[in-house]
């Protein structure tokens, strides 16, 4: 299981939980498990979301591995100027 931190405005979809656990070995599995377990997150994930894995921001990188002790933070899809 991997712990995923959910940012504040999405916590309505996780019953208020700031952190949820999913069974996942990579970026893609984290996202699909989040969508499956918390349907309220689907709209945000479809509109775009990134994952910070151990401090690095990944915007779309399905096969980036995550480990049980990885720090995984769900973030908005990031754009720049």
């Amino acid at each position, binding site marked *: 299981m991997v712990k995923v931190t959910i940012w504040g*405005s999405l916590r*309505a979809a996780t019953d208020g939980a700031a952190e949820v656990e999913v069974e996942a070995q990579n970026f893609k599995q984290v996202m699909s498990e989040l969508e499956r377990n918390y349907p309220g997150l689907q709209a945000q994930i479809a509109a775009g979301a990134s994952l910070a894995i151990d401090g690095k921001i990944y*915007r779309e990188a399905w096969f980036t591995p995550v480990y049980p002790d990885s720090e995984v933070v769900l973030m908005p899809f*990031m754009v720049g*100027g």
Partner: protein
Amino acid sequence: MALDTEKREFKIIGTRPLRPDGIDKVTGRALYGADMVAPGMLEGKILRSPHAHARIVSIDASAALALQGVKAVVTASDFSEAKGELMQNILENCMAQDKALYHGHAVAAVAATSETIAKQALKLIKVDYEVLPHVTEIEDAVKPDAPVLRPDRRAKGAPEGTPANITNLSNFGHGDLEAGFAKADLIIERSFRTESTHQGYIEPHACLASMGPDGKADLWCCTQGHYAVRDMCASFLGMSLSQLRVTASEIGGGFGGKTVVFIEPVALALSRKAGKPVKMAMTREEVFKASGPTPSSLADIKIGMTKGGKITAAHAKLRFQGGAFPSGTIDLGAMCAFAAYDLEAVRAEGFNVMTNRPREAAYRAPGAPIGVYPVEALIDELCIELGLDPLDVRLLNAADKGTKSSYGPTFEAIGLKATLEAAKAHRHYNTPLGPNQGRGVSCGFWFNFGGSTSVSMSVNDDGTVAVTEGNPDIGGSRASVGMMAAEELGIPYENIRTIVADTNSIGFNDPTHGSRVTFSVGLATIEAARDAIKKMCTRVAKIWDIDPDAVMWEDGHARPAGENAGNYEPMSLAEIAAIASKTGGPIAGHYEVNADSAGVSFGVHLADIEVDPETGFSTVLRYTVFQDAGKAIHPAYVEGQMQGGAAQGIGWAMNEEYIYGKDGLLQNAGFLDYRIPVASDLPPIEAVILEIPNPGHPYGVRGVGETAIVPPLAAVSNAVSRAIGKRMRALPMSPPKILKVIKG
């Protein structure tokens, strides 16, 4: 991704060679968006809404079409249905559908044989508007009786009672705020305001579109990302991607504002209808009215501090206004607000509200300056109240490796503390100030991104190398990419020519944004060079009849290694290239990647400002930028990014703002009334580069383009406030506004 050892000796990286497009740009030869022509080309012009908010009852173009020389008129019905909310919003921003949503919103377009005829034709298009009540300010847009732009754009999952114009909600942070504030010796809570600003690139949007009767089209335009332009235009015109080839012209500035489309799909639709090439260029007035400004904002900030300067808790409530469409920039603002600090209890929350203004577009570190300014201004106020040095307080609270950032993830190695220390030790910080002078300090932060990137390079017969990349070069990136190729291949920089290819010539590239180009394109270039090197070593191994692993690449030569060392005369790249056709054919290298790990960046700015107490006129006396650039490939262009970002931030702080009248109309759509800094407004801007290598890049590159616009807003505001001995809490700080605070 192979990472090099920390201490690599560079030959070319870190030097300052001339840029490859330089001669063209000092002789007037370089071709920008509006400089291209095609035989038989028509001129396109756009009709724009004179109202802030109006239902379009009907559009009658018959009189315009009857005018001699008019070849086509298009309206919203000439475009395909865009897929997904974001694409629909971008299309609607290019061309109004049932409603005009802001003053200057495009409602129709015409193509004619001359600009004069096209302008006449615009006057002949009859639009029947039903004028609707409008709203342009944040305070008004959240009122219960506010006009609602689009009821279906309210934030999804918003709690009961959320005003209908609120499109996005944001909330980041951690820790127990109440407990944190309880530990503080001093808590201050203040409100701040910023206005919308424009990127202000000197080149207006311009393009030349040409579609044939077979549906194949070519588009030439100034853009930060021609692949993104292709994808958006193809979607809006119902084309497949391979039918549309987009070539990026030289670009006269973008700063985020040229990452979306405005006139490009319109020019294509006109060309399709007229059967001729169509050229379009926005006027400056159109640029202001209908291309992307930043959000405006209101902020309530509350920070608790101990007597010693430790921040015990921090809270921000941010309200952004992002124009007539949803905008996620509030998230970026909220994430950046407190990112510079190591905080036990922190929360930044807020919302974005829709108004009758143009759709907000990214502007250099989008959201960050607006989120960071009120925080850095309040910290300055706390420092004064507690009699503490503003740099010491920032050093005491600075985020570092291992800090849990205010937006969630834990930081890797970052350079904030080193940057603050450099500022403290710099002579600027120790220069005495005179009367009516103040010194302002501010930190700034930006994430930096990588993204999809393709690079290919061919080794020519004569030993020169052609590098092909796909990111429009706004500030000298062809030079830095060429330098990295030369460094890795071990050949002179002059032997490389780097070009930015069209969308058909090389794989997809994300736009030139997010400070990604030197990082991602550089990374792909180095890997493409390694790919070519591997091929060259394999060829040489065959020639020598030894194992490919026994050939190494050094200084532009293949050399026998291991037990073969010294047995064969090394072969140079040119020698290998000259016989390539005999050893297996042309030699090329390529690399495609979605590059991550760009590495966040921090900056610290110092501003010294003198205010004339009689007039409120302020003069920037001294300005110094400190920034962690990772490895600086071409230091002159790194300095240029730091200086340019600072100048834009100074403009934002001192003068620039969108001004809307009660009638909802934009009152200052020109450079005379929207005043960006001119040469005589600014002092020399010193740029101090710190090089803390990014472990995620083979040469240690971090993005540098965006961070520098973040600190100036508060640095300037803090300097002015200290100079006048009173607090400024709204931007821009034009002389009358400063005077009001002095007199108030």
